[in-house]
């Protein structure tokens, strides 16, 4: 007969906790921090693969071998790897990270997982800014154009995105409460307005400007140059740095503005910083790559499912995952109908819109829209 005293004895409370332990996920803080390393590793691997494949048969490994043994690269290799693929990969990382972080910050600001720069008109506003700069830039005084140089388009995109976000927040928030229905509908209206004004400007544009404008409609990384990288990367790095500092503030905002203030969070400052960050990150992304949708909604949602909604690890993780996913989408767009290219916006929309619908359906019963 087994010794009864040796058998572990549980109280009812013990059993309850045990059941809870099995049924509930483990502490998500650790998982979220571990994810930093996994995602960073994945991004490195994906970047290398992305450098290695492409329409031309140029081999990354061959070029690297030559570099190691000190043999000079062929001109083809130098152009394909250094002038075409590398800036494209870096730009993909910048754009993917900034779109994903913009989405996460916007969702935190609006306290709703359905906010996305592409959906609520922020991208359209940034696009309008960029189009204004291209078409109307000639009317600016010469000294100003000279001073701004290549920064003219990103700055205009930033101003457009900032204006739209501000307007959207003003319209949909009353007394500290954001109405989701108003936000989505106002976003549609603002996006339509921005598109209409953009249309007028495109009508006014001359042939050379039209060529510059075309790629916005497509949304693509194909136009990547070192110049664009140099223009967008600093903005993106700055915006990402600021965004990551917003984590605590956005966590507080999830409780509503009043409660956030009671927690000691300087609410107005957090909101202003969030709006500026979204505008800067979206503006930089749109200025170099046009409107690429759904990264901003899909990436934060997947990340929240995996590691929870705490914004402090979340913002770092979405930046890494956003960069990786955009690089993957870009690879698909390059090889699927090679040697031609499918615009990347099509890929992200095909992958992203079902996820968006899925979020919508899952939340239908839980939250009033």
């Amino acid at each position, binding site marked *: 007969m087994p010794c009864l005293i040796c058998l572990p004895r549980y109280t009812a409370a013990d059993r309850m906790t045990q059941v*809870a332990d099995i049924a509930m996920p483990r*502490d998500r803080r650790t998982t979220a921090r571990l994810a930093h390393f996994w995602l960073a590793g994945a991004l490195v691997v994906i970047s290398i693969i992305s450098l290695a494949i492409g329409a031309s048969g140029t081999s990354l490994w061959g070029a690297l071998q030559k570099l190691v043994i000190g043999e000079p690269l062929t001109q083809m290799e130098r152009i394909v790897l250094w002038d075409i693929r590398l800036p494209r990969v870096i730009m993909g990382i910048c754009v993917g990270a900034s779109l994903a972080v913009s989405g996460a910050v916007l969702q935190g600001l609006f306290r709703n997982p359905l906010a996305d720069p592409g959906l609520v008109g922020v991208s359209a506003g940034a696009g309008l800014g960029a189009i204004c700069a291209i078409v109307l830039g000639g009317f600016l005084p010469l000294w100003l154009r000279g001073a701004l140089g290549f920064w003219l388009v990103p700055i205009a995109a930033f101003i457009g995105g900032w204006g739209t976000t501000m307007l959207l927040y003003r319209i949909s928030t009353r007394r500290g409460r954001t109405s989701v229905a108003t936000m989505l509908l106002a976003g549609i209206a603002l996006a339509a307005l921005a598109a209409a004004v953009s249309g007028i400007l495109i009508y006014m544009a001359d042939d050379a400007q039209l060529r510059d404008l075309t790629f916005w409609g497509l949304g693509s990384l194909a136009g990547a140059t070192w110049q664009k990288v140099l223009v967008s990367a600093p903005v993106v790095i700055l915006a990402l740095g600021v965004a990551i500092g917003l984590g605590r503030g956005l966590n507080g905002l999830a*409780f*509503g503005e009043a409660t956030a203030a009671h927690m000691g*969070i300087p609410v107005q400052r957090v909101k202003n910083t969030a709006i500026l960050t979204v505008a800067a990150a979206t503006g930089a992304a749109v200025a170099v790559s046009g409107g690429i949708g759904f990264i901003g909604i899909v990436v934060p949602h997947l990340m929240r499912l995996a590691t929870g909604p705490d914004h402090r690890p979340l913002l770092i993780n979405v930046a890494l995952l956003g960069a990786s996913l955009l690089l993957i989408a870009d690879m698909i767009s390059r090889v699927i109908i090679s040697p031609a290219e499918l615009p990347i916006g099509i890929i992200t929309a095909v992958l992203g819109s079902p996820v968006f619908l899925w979020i919508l359906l899952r939340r239908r019963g839980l939250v009033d829209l």
Partner: protein
Amino acid sequence: MLTANIDRAWIGPKTILQDVSFRASAGQITAIVGPNGAGKSSLLKAITDEIDFEGEVRFNGDDAEQVRPWELAAIRGVLPQSTTLAFPFTVIEVVRMGLLSGHSGQQEHLPETALARVGLEGYSRRLYQELSGGEQQRVQLARVLCQVWTPVTQENNPRWLLLDEPVASLDIGHQLMVMRLLKDYTARGGGVVAVMHDLNLSAMFADHMVMVVQGGILSAGAPQDVMTDTVLSQAYGCSLRVNQAPVDNSSFLLPHVAAL
């Protein structure tokens, strides 16, 4: 000491409070009572600077408007009537937010202790959104407790719990549990101001009662002074009779003996 001298408070075009002079002492539970729509919650919201008002609010002598948000958060925790969350936080994640905002520091065990004190052991990893209203309210209370865990600051100033209907959605067992917890907080030197719906619980536990009627204070003082036939009948617009409980001599009210 918490003082609020509010000349006028308003929401949109509507004046909610007029000429209210409110006082609460540390070491006491101050209950704000009154009929629906009288301005109880608005009084608390004026004290916590959630609605527009003319006047001044002082915590331990300092003008609340001059104190920076994070310094204010270190001396007073605020519990709203109900809190909905935009994202799927777990219970422990919600309670930990209190740790970050107050001066309780990074005391890892504190959230668990706070949860146990509101009767929610073993709930840490449950999703907040899936809890009942009463459970959510207790989770939020645990969060606020974490924020101002020690009732007295190092400079020997009291900390404050400002609670909007902390027990309204709770069952009787948890109502008593929470009220005793508040009593204990005041016994250790802290101050509690609570908007209360239940007159009997207020009379049992409060040291000071403030009856708000039509945007002004009708009566304030010890519970036996406020819980009188005249005050209650005037406040609630029906004839009410107050009784004394034999156990602790506190006043209580039975709806059965009300005359129309």
